[in-house]
């Protein structure tokens, strides 16, 4: 579930932090920059593991702060393909079942990866598994807050760096007098999460824990 990623970065220590121990100041700056943030194509950063190398600190003209190049290792949440994870159902929608793990929310199980046959109950907004036995069909509901075991099948990284103003201007060439509200609205609607996991529960043993614990 978690991996150690080696990274190199230049850390800026402002002058009011000079009395502190260099290691502590650097650890605090790194955590401030990376904790709970997603790095593109790496994963969700949790916390600093250790510092492997500290190079010399330099002070540049015009800036009173010191700049230090740091080699460090960071604990990152990045499950490997086909890993089995445990989570809770956040809610169900037409797109599938949304699962959360507390510290990571954007996990989706699309309808084709649910135990087949599955149906979406519009009234209660919940997916259910139509389980057939000799006695008849049982409808197993996937309720909110239920613990669910799933396998990771895919991960999607989206680069959410801000785009320049050029993109916004070309979208509205015919309305020079209009305020930039429409482009702002369009980009606000398409806010993709930077890191999404796609899962499946289509194998024996996967799905709600209550289905398999007799």
């Amino acid at each position, binding site marked *: *579930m*978690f*991996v*150690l990623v080696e990274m190199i970065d230049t850390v800026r220590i402002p002058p009011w932090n000079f009395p502190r121990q260099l290691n502590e100041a650097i650890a*605090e700056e790194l*955590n*401030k920059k990376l*904790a*709970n*943030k997603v790095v593109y194509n790496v994963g969700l950063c*949790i*916390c600093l*593991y250790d510092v492997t190398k500290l190079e010399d600190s330099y002070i540049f003209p015009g800036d009173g702060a010191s700049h230090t190049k740091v080699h460090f290792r960071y*604990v990152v949440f990045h499950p*490997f393909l*086909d*890993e*089995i994870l*445990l989570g809770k159902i956040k809610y169900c929608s037409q797109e599938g079942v949304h699962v959360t*793990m*507390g*510290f990571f929310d954007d996990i989706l199980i699309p309808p084709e990866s649910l135990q087949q046959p599955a149906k979406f109950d519009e009234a209660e907004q919940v997916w259910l598994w139509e389980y057939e036995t000799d006695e008849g069909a049982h409808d197993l509901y996937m309720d909110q807050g239920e613990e669910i*075991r799933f*396998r990771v099948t895919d991960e999607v990284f989206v680069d959410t760096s801000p785009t320049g103003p050029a993109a916004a201007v070309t979208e509205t060439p015919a309305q020079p007098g209009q305020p930039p509200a429409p482009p702002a609205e369009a980009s606000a609607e398409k806010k993709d999460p930077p890191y999404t996991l796609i899962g499946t529960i289509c*194998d*024996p*043993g*996967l799905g709600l824990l209550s289905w*398999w614990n007799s």
Partner: protein
Amino acid sequence: MLSNYEVFKLLTDLKEQRKDSGKNKHSAGQQNLNTIMYETLKYLSKTPSSRQTPEIVKEFLTAMMPHKLTKAEKLQLLNHRPQTAVEIQLMVEESEERLSEEQIEELIQMVATVLPGDPEQENAAPAEAQIEQS
């Protein structure tokens, strides 16, 4: 790759350190670290990994050596502590071809004895066993 236990230990040690230093936990910059630490600790404390120690992990890995499992499979067994054959089949690829039924039973037994389990579950089980015997 890190096991859940290693991350759990790292976060609990970090929490102790921050509790001792105490001054600037609530500044705007530290809020992200606080949030992620709290949520991750909450998630991990409900898994079997929170009850492990380095000795238990070493014992588990030496016990797993004769079964020739890949690193990813051993990591998953360590993190999840499977109790049924179905769970083992999920975590070990092609388990039907590589492990016989006896070996799967053996794996379940070893996991249950070496890795500490949920104390609530274990208190319920002996009580049921006693009822069955009497």
